[in-house]
């Protein structure tokens, strides 16, 4: 049957809707190969239609399959792109190595460009009113207090605060820190806010 491999690919990605999977190089290569074969068969049969009119129908079926495969592959890439966009907002501009290796080279290029674009845009914000840029990834929820209490979930190491103080973030230590300093770390799952 046509287009079965590509469906496997999509089902895999649909199963893990909340996470990004490894870019499936091997399967995509196979699918493209399948498309090449279909295309070649169609070329031959299309040339032969002058003798055998009924071959037209076959050509049409194959052509539908080709279009179907194309659509599925595009959808696969498009969905990954959306997830990669989220990665930039949630993990920040530097991806942890285990996430980085899930992306193909082209995807990583795209990520870098998107990241640069976003950074340029954020820098340009508010210049007319005297700010040099606004970090849009901060304060996704309105901050309610200047400082918050956070629990450290992993051995992170040293964190330098804006005022130059250095704080050692060790697992299970509690800190009372300025909200602005912790937000990114909370979103990255290194700190956890406690009441």
């Amino acid at each position, binding site marked *: 049957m046509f287009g079965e491999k590509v469906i496997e690919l999509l089902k895999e990605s649909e199963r893990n809707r909340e996470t990004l999977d490894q870019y499936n190089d091997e399967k995509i290569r196979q699918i493209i190969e399948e498309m090449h074969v279909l295309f070649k068969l169609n070329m031959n049969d299309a040339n032969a239609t002058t003798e055998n009119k009924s071959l037209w129908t076959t050509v049409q079926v194959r052509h539908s399959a080709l279009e179907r495969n194309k659509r599925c592959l595009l959808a696969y890439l498009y969905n990954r792109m959306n997830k990669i966009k989220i990665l930039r907002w949630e993990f920040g501009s530097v991806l942890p190595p285990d996430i980085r290796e899930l992306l193909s080279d082209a995807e990583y290029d795209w990520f870098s460009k998107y990241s640069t674009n976003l950074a340029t845009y954020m820098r340009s914000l508010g210049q007319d009113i005297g700010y040099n840029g606004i970090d849009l990834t901060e304060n996704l929820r309105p901050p309610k207090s200047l*400082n918050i209490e956070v629990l450290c979930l992993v051995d992170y190491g040293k964190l330098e605060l804006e005022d130059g103080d250095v704080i050692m973030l060790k697992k*299970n230590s509690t800190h009372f820190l300025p909200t602005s300093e912790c937000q990114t770390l909370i979103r990255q799952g290194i700190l956890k806010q406690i009441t």
Partner: protein
Amino acid sequence: MFVEDIKNDFYNTLLGNRVLLLVHYDVDAVCTCKILQDLFKCDNILYTLVPVGGISDLKTAYEENNEEIKFVVLVNCGGTIDLVDILQPDEDVIFFVLDSHKPTDICNVYSDGQVRLVYKDDEENIPNFDDIFRDDEDEEEADENLQGADRLEAMVERRRDRKAWEERRHTLMFNYTQFSYYGKPSSCVALELAVRASRNNAAALWAGAVGCAAHSALYLRPPAQCLLDAEPLNRCLNAQSHSTTAHVVVEKDAWLPLYRWWSVEGALSHASFFTPKLKLHASSGASRLRQLLADMGFPLQQARQAYRSMDVELRRCLLSALETAAPKHKLPIPTRPTFLLHKPHSPPMAALDAVYAIMALIEHETLPKAVGFQKALSALQVNGENEPLKVGITAARRSLEAVARLAHSTLSSRGLLLAGPFNYFIVQEGTSEAGLVRGPLWLGEAARWIATATSGARPILASAPLPDGQCLLLGLPPRYDQEPRNLFGAAFEQAAQKSGISVVLDYVDTSVIVLPTSQRTQFLDALTALLA
């Protein structure tokens, strides 16, 4: 050096600075920490909080976090050791010590400002400065201008003088350090600070009440002292406006652990100061308990079901029934004034229950200590749903049951062994109790239980297995319920020196030590020889 004014000299110094808060794993410390945290939050004092289990923990915690830190607050740890010597801090670092462990190390007392003790206990007989510190160099110089025989004489004179002084110093120091004991709960001191800062809200009062209850439930202080300690707390309670939100009150209540979350029978058979007198471990124990319930007028069916769903009439007369029935069986009266937290639309919560819940969270069977500590802190919150507290109460019930099982089996199978001047018992490795009764808090509870069951005239040692072939050894003084001064701290130290066994004296409470299980018998022998 002692802080004169707790607000100006302690709290106001911290304002605007980053503070390192090192807190010991015990109930009073958790309560203190809660009060301080709330204060710090109000004044935007940035802090880093690290719970510490012992002296080595304290050292690593300080070394890891001391960068850019100029102020360190120690809660229930560090007072009994020479901080400057052990932590080797930079000169401009200041330590504030709020420690209810006593006696306070003499170097901390006479530190010239680097170590500041937040609270001065009048009960402590701290030796005078001149009696323990002496500057010899000045005297040498003063003698230079003397000649010949005069000089010789002066030297002999001085030596004799010095020897006498040294002997005197030794006696003084010996008297000062021979007993380890507890002072006023740190949470009461912290509460006073909150009052001075006009922030004595319900949360602070509740934390203070739980801290107070901890000292009396764990018999860390003589009963009379406990009452005196709670005096400032009572004053605050009176001043408290009777609001419709959460508030703390003093009421007469049954001094039975967790009975609101248990059944009456369950609570009666798991109270360490009360149940041992029923001798439940003996074959006649069960019938004695039934007799008591009958005298109270409680049908067994009612006494066995959850207190929450018990007959309302019975719930109402529980206190009076206990008071009339207990003396008939020559039992202590299990009611006394206690702190209760009243919350709208929920049953009252006794400070005693919170004490046990926090204990169970800190020394939880499965939770790592540091996680338990965080949960214990949030169990103290007074508003809203309190999930950690429920976890703690469930765990406390399990631990209390384990303590009771352990005590019963020890008593009925002659597990309590005699060794010269003291009795001792050992929690066997691999038993179901060993998992729950493994920290000093619950082991202490078991030791008190057994001491009460055996009239408590003799000191008791308790030992529980730890991983890696180590074991915990804990000493309970005789008549612990009246005079909780503990001589085992000094005794352990000496016995360790004499026997040459590698004992780990890491706990802040010196009457708790860790040693290799294989050398336990040897150590106990050395201790017997020492105390005999």
